[in-house]
Structure formats: C-alpha cells, structure tokens
C-alpha cells in the first residue's frame, strides 16, 4: 500500500431487532479518494456510514477511521469527520448564518470561519434566510457548508443529491472534487449512476454485504457482460419478446433503441437473430452491471 488509508474496516456487522442490516462488510478508502457507496434501498449504506462516523456501535468488526479505532475512539473520530445526513437535519427555524454559527461554536471555530464558509459556498447573499424556506438545492448547499466548515479530513455524504436539480448537482460535485484535491477523503452514497461514475472508486453493497469494489472500469469489466444495441420501429413489443429469449439477461429501452445485455455473446447474437434483428456492440453501462449484481445477490439470499 503506497497510499495511506482513511477508512479501513473489516467484518463490520450490525443488526436491529434480530435483522442483520450490515453483514461482515470490509471497506477500504484511500486518503484523498472519492469513494462511491452504492446499493439498493435498505442495503445498509446508511447504517455503514453511521458506524464509520461513530453514531452507531458495530455489533462486530474492527478497523480504523483516520487512524482511530472505530469502536473505541468514536468521539475523536466525530471531531475530524463531516457527516451530511440523508434527511436535512439543520434547524429550519434558524437562518443560514445562525445555523453555521451554531456549528462553528460546537467545533470551537472563530466567527471568521462562518464568513469564509458563506463566501466559499456562495451563501452570503442568502445568509439571513431561514433554512426552512430554502429550496432543496440551497438546503443541500447549507448542509454541505456546515459539514465542511471545520475542515474535516473525512467527509461522509449520505445520498446528498436526492431531490436536487442537475445544475445544483453539478456544482455540488465540482465542490466535492475541489475538496478531494485539497486532500479531503470523501465517501458518498448515491443511487445515481452518473454520480457513481464521478467517483474514483465505487463500492457496491447489497443485502448488507459488500458485493464488489473497484474503479468504474474495473467493476464493468469484472461483470463480464456483453451489451448490444438494437434499433427497432416497435421497441416495446420487441423488448417483451427478447426478455423471454434464452441468453438475454436485461433489455432496457433507450428511446427507439434497446440495449440487450447478457453474459454470452454468441447466445445473445442468436437471440437477436431469431427475432430477425441485428445488434451492434455498445458499452455496458454501470447501471446494467448493478442491476445484474442486485439480481445475483437476491438469488444468493434465497
């Protein structure tokens, strides 16, 4: 290992009321890396993040976060971690500035830190507005500002861009990349494939288990899927028939085209030939890979 690790945990396990939500998860994130955390709803992403930032105590497992013991040094970890919750969790009856001043006070930061943060994130013009009256994009920006004001070494973002428009999302990601360049490590959970592709590495979790991790290219290559694009005047009916054809795993409509995915190129070609259409190779998307991973882990659970 040439790079230092910001997060290095193994065997992380947590159950609530007899249901295992996170099961033996090992996660390693290098310093300065933007790590994507993906997986279906209820797969244990939030629980994992909460264990990493010390808000939940793992039932089992061990490891270090920023060189601190994840089980015994939860309080020290919290000081150096910025955690942005999935649901907006600042005070709606306080203004942007008042919220930031509150956070600054808890971390013992000088007043100047609030002014700088307002300026950095373009919040100065709205600083007296109550947080409750902000739109989704501005709320998210406030939450991000509050989480990074104390210059944490590790930023944990739990579905930060849910319900945020594309422009605000892009700005948000530019901000994240700028911070990572400055040395901050980021672990971000998301459902959006385009966001996953913006991460240095991705980690896919399903049913509480870590299924795969690597760069986007590695994950796609590792899935060994073949995807063919088919043009059709009546894509709906063709898709119906192809879904039942042998060797076809997924059929996704893209306008008038279909992306047909399978594991075996020859069987896939045969299936298309049987319908009298020709396919040309297209890149397998991350989404195709994830849907396949999801179905596989579902099968494993049964």
């Amino acid at each position, binding site marked *: 290992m040439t790079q230092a690790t910001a997060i290095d945990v193994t065997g992380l396990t947590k159950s609530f009321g007899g249901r295992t939500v996170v099961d033996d998860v090992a996660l390693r994130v290098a310093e300065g890396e933007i790590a994507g955390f993906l997986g279906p709803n209820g797969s244990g992403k939030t629980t994992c993040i909460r264990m990493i*930032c010390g*808000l939940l*105590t793992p039932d089992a497992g061990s490891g270090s976060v920023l060189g601190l013991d994840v089980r015994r040094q*939860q309080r020290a970890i919290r000081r150096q971690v910025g955690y942005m*919750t999935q649901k907006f*969790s*600042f005070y709606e009856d306080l203004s942007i500035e008042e919220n930031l001043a509150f956070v600054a006070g808890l*971390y013992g930061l000088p007043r100047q830190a609030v002014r700088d943060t307002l300026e950095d994130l373009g919040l100065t013009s709205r600083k007296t507005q109550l947080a409750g009256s902000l739109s989704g994009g501005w709320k998210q920006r406030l939450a991000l500002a509050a989480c990074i004001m104390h210059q944490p070494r590790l930023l944990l973002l739990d579905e930060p861009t849910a319900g945020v428009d594309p422009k605000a999302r892009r700005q948000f990601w530019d901000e994240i990349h700028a911070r990572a360049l400055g040395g901050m490590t980021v672990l971000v959970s998301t459902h959006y494939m385009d966001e996953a592709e913006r991460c240095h590495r991705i980690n896919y979790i399903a049913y509480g288990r870590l299924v795969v991790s690597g760069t986007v290219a590695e994950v796609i290559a590792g899935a060994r899927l073949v995807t063919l694009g088919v043009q059709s005047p009546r894509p709906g009916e063709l898709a119906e028939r192809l879904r039942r054809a042998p060797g076809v795993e997924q059929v996704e409509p893209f306008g008038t085209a279909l992306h047909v995915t399978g594991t075996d190129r020859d069987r896939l070609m045969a299936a298309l030939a049987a319908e009298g259409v020709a396919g040309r190779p297209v890149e397998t998307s991350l989404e195709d890979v994830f849907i396949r991973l999801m179905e596989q882990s579902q099968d494993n659970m049964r």
Partner: protein
Amino acid sequence: MSFSPTRLRALLRKEFIQMRRDRVTFAMMLGVPIMQLLLFGYAINSDPRDMPTALVAPVQDRFGRSFAAALENSGYYRITHPLATADQAERLMTRGEVAFVVTVPADFGRRMERGDRPQILVEADGSDPSATSGAVAALSGIAESAFRRDLPAGSARTAPEIVAHRRYNPEAVTQYNIVPGLLGVILQMTMVMMTAMALTREIERGTMENLLAMPATPAEIMIGKITPFLTVGAVQVLVILGAAWAIFDVPFAGSLGLLLAGVMVFVLALVLLGYLISTAARTQMQAMQIAIFIFLPSVLLSGFMFPFRGMPGWAQALGEVLPVTHLLRLVRGIMLKGAGWADVAPQFAALATMVAVLGTLALLRFRRTLD
C-alpha cells in the same frame, strides 16, 4: 357525495390500527384512568386525622393528662411531643412538624380545684385552613368529655374554656394557602411540559442525528437545553409572587431572598425532570402524556388540593418524592410563618437531592449514539 358506509369503515379501520400501534397512548388511555382512580380514591381524605400535636404543660397533673387523652380519643390529635417547652413548640409549628400546639398553663390544676374557669390554648397551623378545621370544630366536645368527671354532678361550674387560635392566617383566608401553592403547581405544569419536548423535538425534526454527529457532550447539551427554561421559570416566579403580593395581599413574613433561592432550586428540579422525560419519550406527544401523568399526583398528593396529613402512609411516601410537596412546605413556611434557613433546610435538602438524582439519571439515559 352521499354518505358511504364503506368509506367510513375504511376510515375507522385505519384509525383503530393506528391507535393500537401507538402503544404508549393506548396504555395511557386504558391503564392510567384505572390507576389514578384507585390511587386518588384511596389517598385523598379531606378530613385528616391523627395530626401531630405538641403539648406544652409545665405541670404534669391529672387535668392535663385527661385533656391529652381526650384529644387523642377524638381521633383528630396525636400527641407527638408531650413534653415540649413553649419555644420548642413554636419551632415545631414553624417547621410544620406539628399541626397543633396545646398549652395547659402551669396554674391550670390549681384554678380548676379552686373552682375557677381556667383556659387551655389550642393553636392550629392555619397555613392550610381546611386541614385543621375539623379538629378545631371538635374541641368543645373534647373538653366536655375530658373534664366531665372533674365537675361535680349538678354543679353550676362549666368546663374550662378552650381558646382556639389559628396561627398565620387567623381569618382563614383561602388565598393565603392557595396562592403560594399555585406558584408550585403553575411552575410544575409549564416547566416540566416545556422541557419534556426539548430532545423529542430534535428527534422528530431529524436534527438529533446531526447534533450527535457533532462534538457536544451530553452535559453540554443538557445545560444548553435547560438554561433557557430556567430563565423563563425565573420570570414566571417573579410574576406570580408579584401578583400574590399586589393582588391577593398574601403576607410575606419571611426572607424574600430565601424564598427565591428555594423556588429556583425547585425550578431546576422541574426542568431536569422534564429533560429526563425527553430522554425517554420518542415523540413530543408521548412527552406531553408523561408530563401530564406526573402533573396529576403533583396537584392531588402534594398537599396542594387536599391536606397532606389526611393521606394514608403510602400516599404520603409517594407525595414525598414529588418536588411540589417540598416546595409547598417551603413557600408556606417562608411566606406565611416567617420560617428561616434552619426551618426550611430539610426542604432545601430534599429539593437539592432531587436535582442531583434527576440530573444524573438524565445524563445516564442520554444516548450518545443512535443505537
């Protein structure tokens, strides 16, 4: 649209399911009425008996003894301090340890034998007029039965004169008793209820997760939460005391500083009680229900509404753990009786103990994590 039984059935069904799911509310609706009915039904007695009495009788003779026996036989009086001096009796009364002081003068026996009509002084603690009224009303009958044998049959001599004197509140003005008590009850209602929401509001609005993720210690969060309410409480105290003085003419016999100090310890105990509730309740609704659940005994078992001494021992024990009980004694003692520090020290001690216990419990209950 016409009335549809199907739609109504769907609505009713949903309401009943939700009612059943909310376990705490469900338990409160079924269990609490029964519990409170039994509790208060057995505990409350507006005509208290066996009230502690100090007997000041410098000369021990058969007259004094037979009067004491008659007092006890009436059921209202229990002589707890049979050999008190006048000074001791005075202090016992100020502290509220006795409800009556019976003084039999030294020359009582001599004057009885001489055929005079001597006096016996019965002083009642008038700070709670309703508690002692029954016992005072029974006095003439008691005297008659005590001295019947000492009066020769057919003699024209009448029984000795019993002079009853209501201390602190000779005219039995109800406000003198109620207004200082209201101070405690109003504070209890507002302070506990407001602070009981403190943490549950954070939980309901989803801000708790964020608060926990930031570096604030449980003690800092607690002090931060309760201090604003202490300020509100202090303002309420001044308003109520001002009204007691200006509108209701309640006498201020004792030290105002001592009174304020005592009331603020009480307010501190209340906000800590509220805070403790908020560490246990999961919603603001639950917090409110628990606060009301504690409010009722604070009114009924503290001596505010009904005489404390009228309750059976187990109910008195229950009353002793309520902050209001001690505040009532403290406030009535200082305002009406002019009690000093030494007299109300036990009440201060009780309230301070509650502050320590409630504060510790709240800190122990506070969850630093979301587990």
